[in-house]
């Protein structure tokens, strides 16, 4: 129930690693539930265990009994990661809301796996108001029933979903679970508000400068890798093959711009920005970019006019003009947020196109029909990134991805990887990696968070890795504690 924050010394690195691992599990679990609203409890639980293994193996956060981690370690890692994320997600109502929902779901699934004995223990420790029914009180054997004053469960009474006798409500184990989850939510929610209120006191003065930004960044982390490697790895793009590459590997938001550009021989500013930065991201050199745009704008715009009006902007995006900033490609949240008029083609097509146009566009990408429908319905529900992921699966005929698409570059990188593996397999090389998307998607979360993360290595917190650690030992209770009994 997370009633007491942990108090021990941990390294800054472990602090961050545990938090990121938990965050990955929460986020991917959320994505999985959004994509599959009708999964059974068993399937959800399997997924959760799979995600825990994937992200938390060796951290002590894996499912208990797994090699190398004891139950005590599990509990410790669970506590620390929960409280670090609490710190990170207590700052705004939106963050609190997300964290609360994600954690409550985790708790709900976990509570469901408890054995009757564990239920007893849990209730006795955390919810003593739910009493066991004294023998023979109902005149029948009631193994799985608890009694609680009816005033504690007004919703159940209101819906006549309990048995009432003499002021006691008799609640079955199934009916009990949501009540306990509700109490869990209330507890975490109170803890979060309390933390937010006392945010300034949460960090010891001497650690504040190092810890605060780290904690704050946890909440903003999109868990998306830096895709800068893509450009060098698949650096074979040129003005000549761009349309070919687009047809095979571009997400809809980009292939849609490519098509519009090619047919209209023009793109308005928003579209030009979105596409140029993406092309730069996939490794199209600046000279090739100028060549490409000039030829696409012709004949509507003469070469001379192009050089005058548009070339500067492209060079600017490549950091060769003006402030010489090296601009990076937009990610999904940015693109989804774009608005535009009727003549604009930028933004997220899953958000901006009507269903008929969207179906046709996905059809042109040769997307599997079932997946087209899935994408359309996700888009209708406002889950644009999940819609994009569905399209990815439909186009590439792969099993589903763990996370939604969070950047066009991610889509592109995945697409290149899948196709490369297929070709290698066809050539008799590496076995076909049909489940490979899964493993690759893990990449961003575990490897994409900069140097500190990479240095942790797969071995986990072995004392020998001290050299790779960030800084000295930190008094963790000062970080994650500070509000004893706040839950």
């Amino acid at each position, binding site marked *: 129930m997370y009633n007491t924050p942990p108090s021990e010394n941990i390294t800054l690195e472990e602090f961050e690693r545990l938090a990121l691992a938990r965050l990955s599990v929460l986020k991917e679990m959320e994505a999985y539930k959004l994509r599959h609203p009708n999964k059974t409890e068993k399937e959800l639980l399997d997924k959760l265990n799979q995600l825990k293994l994937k992200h938390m193996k060796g951290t002590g956060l894996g499912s208990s009994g797994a090699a190398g981690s004891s139950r005590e370690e599990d509990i410790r890692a669970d506590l620390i990661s929960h409280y670090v994320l609490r710190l990170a997600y207590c700052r705004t109502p939106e963050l609190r809301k997300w964290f609360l929902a994600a954690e409550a779901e985790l708790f709900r699934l976990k509570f469901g796996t408890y054995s009757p004995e564990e239920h007893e223990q849990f209730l006795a420790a955390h919810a003593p108001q739910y009493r066991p029914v004294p023998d023979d009180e109902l005149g029948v054997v009631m193994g799985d029933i608890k009694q609680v004053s009816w005033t504690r469960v007004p919703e159940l*009474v*209101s819906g*006549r979903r309990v048995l009432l006798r003499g*002021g006691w409500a008799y609640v079955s184990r199934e009916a009990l679970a949501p009540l306990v989850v509700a109490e869990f939510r209330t507890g975490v929610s109170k803890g979060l508000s309390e933390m937010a209120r006392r945010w300034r006191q949460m960090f010891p003065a001497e650690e504040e400068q190092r810890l605060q930004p780290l904690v704050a960044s946890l909440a903003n982390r999109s868990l998306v890798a830096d895709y800068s490697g893509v450009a060098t790895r698949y650096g074979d793009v040129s003005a000549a093959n761009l349309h070919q590459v687009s047809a095979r590997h571009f997400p809809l938001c980009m292939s849609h711009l490519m098509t519009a550009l090619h047919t209209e021989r023009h793109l308005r500013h928003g579209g030009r920005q979105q596409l140029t930065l993406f092309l730069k991201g996939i490794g199209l050199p600046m000279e090739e970019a100028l060549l490409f745009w000039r030829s696409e704008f012709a004949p509507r715009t003469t070469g001379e006019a192009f050089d005058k009006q548009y070339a500067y902007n492209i060079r600017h995006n490549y950091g060769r003009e003006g402030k010489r900033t090296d601009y990076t490609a937009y990610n999904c949240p940015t693109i989804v947020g774009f608005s535009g008029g009727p003549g604009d083609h930028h933004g997220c097509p899953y958000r901006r196109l009507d269903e008929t146009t969207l179906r046709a566009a996905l059809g042109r990408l040769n997307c599997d029909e079932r997946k087209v429908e899935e994408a359309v319905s996700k888009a209708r529900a406002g889950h644009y990134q999940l819609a994009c992921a569905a399209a990815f699966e439909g186009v590439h005929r792969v099993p589903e991805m763990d996370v939604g698409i969070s950047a066009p570059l991610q889509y592109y990188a995945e697409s290149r990887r899948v196709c490369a593996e297929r070709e290698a397999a066809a050539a008799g090389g590496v076995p076909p990696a049909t489940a490979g998307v899964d493993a690759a998607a893990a990449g961003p979360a575990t490897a994409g968070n900069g140097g500190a993360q990479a240095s942790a290595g797969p071995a986990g917190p072995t004392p020998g890795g001290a050299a790779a650690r960030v800084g000295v030992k930190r008094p963790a209770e000062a970080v994650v504690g500070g509000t004893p009994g706040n839950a």
Partner: protein
Amino acid sequence: MAGDAAPANAEPSINVQDAMPSYYDSKHAQADAHFFNRREFCFTLNGDIFVRYQAFKDGAELQAAIQRRCPAKIDIGPVYSANPQDRHKFGASFQPLERELVFDIDLTDYDDVRTCGSGGHICARCWPLMAVAVKIIDAGLRQEFGFQHILWVYSGRRGVHCWVCDPSARQLTDEQRSAVASWFSVYKGHEEGKARVALLGGTMHPAVERAAAILRNAWRETLLPAQRLLEDGPHCEAMLRYLPEEGLVESVKRKWATAAKKEANRSMDVSLLRWGIIEEEVRLRLAEEKSRSKTGGNFKVVGPLERCLDEIVMAHAYPRLDMEVSKKMNHLLKAPFCVHPKTGKVCVPIDPAHADDFDPDGVPTVASLLGELAAAAAAREEAAAGADGAAEAAGKGPEPWRDTRMADAVTTFERCLLDGLAASNREELASRTRVAVAVGQLGIDF
């Protein structure tokens, strides 16, 4: 009500306060002056002038105010966090803290199913609807919710009020009050000329089943014959609409026609006779359907057939609560023993165990009580005149109301509420004392 307020008393000559000495025992848990004076009373003066947020130091002050202003109606509200008359001083911290859990059942809500009258009408023929409502809610409050101190009061015109006075009931939150009201609410309004009752498809909830058992009994015993629900065409048609199959309706009508020709049936109550035929036809149809297959027939056919009789009974007679009254702690409700301004009837308590015997037309009115008082005084005078030289005998006795039928009402009040409350208050006091002795706070020498 419970221990802190004398029932408001619109009959100046009746001092109910005297009837409950244990209430004003200074040792009583709530006897401190700062409890009673936080209770809101609302007077309705002649001309529909509402005077809200009145509070009184004690019963005597309340009685004096009643006698001075003669309110047409007195409502009782909650106990607030402060004296309601000082509420402006406290701003948002002025909040209701306690209030009896109350229910209001009104016969006007049954207009679609009662045949004897509508609106403000009430008579011996529609009273059984109220009586059965009292029985069902009373049993539910006691057996399911575990409440003990429950007062039922005739509302003076066409309904009943219920006051649940257990300390735990008085402290319920609005959400919990709503939950109790919903627990008892089965009637969900009208649809396609039928009352919709939520029977939850398959098996009935034990609480609904308990109510249904009471209703099935009352249906044949009192409701059906009293309301003559199956005598005239439109009412018959209305009831037949609940039968799930057209064929069933037709066969019932045929049997009714045949039965009407039999001499032996002439003496029977028509409604009961016809109801018996409906039951029989449903039973036959159900047996036929179930024999069709080993699995007991198509559940889509069997289900509605199995439910339809209960649906008819529930739709016609299950208690229809005025939910809004129960949901909020600060809802006002007319005080017991008030005189109804339109009928002149006194809102007398009803013994739930004898709700069937209650006669709404026989309750004392202001006029009847005054008559009885006068008669009693005259009788005393006569007796005094006969008795030699008994000088002061012509005056009133110490409690003249004891000579009127108000005495019966007060007895019911004591038996049904006050005695029980006093007993549990004494018990509570005793146990508090025991605890106090145990911790040595009283320092009593043994």
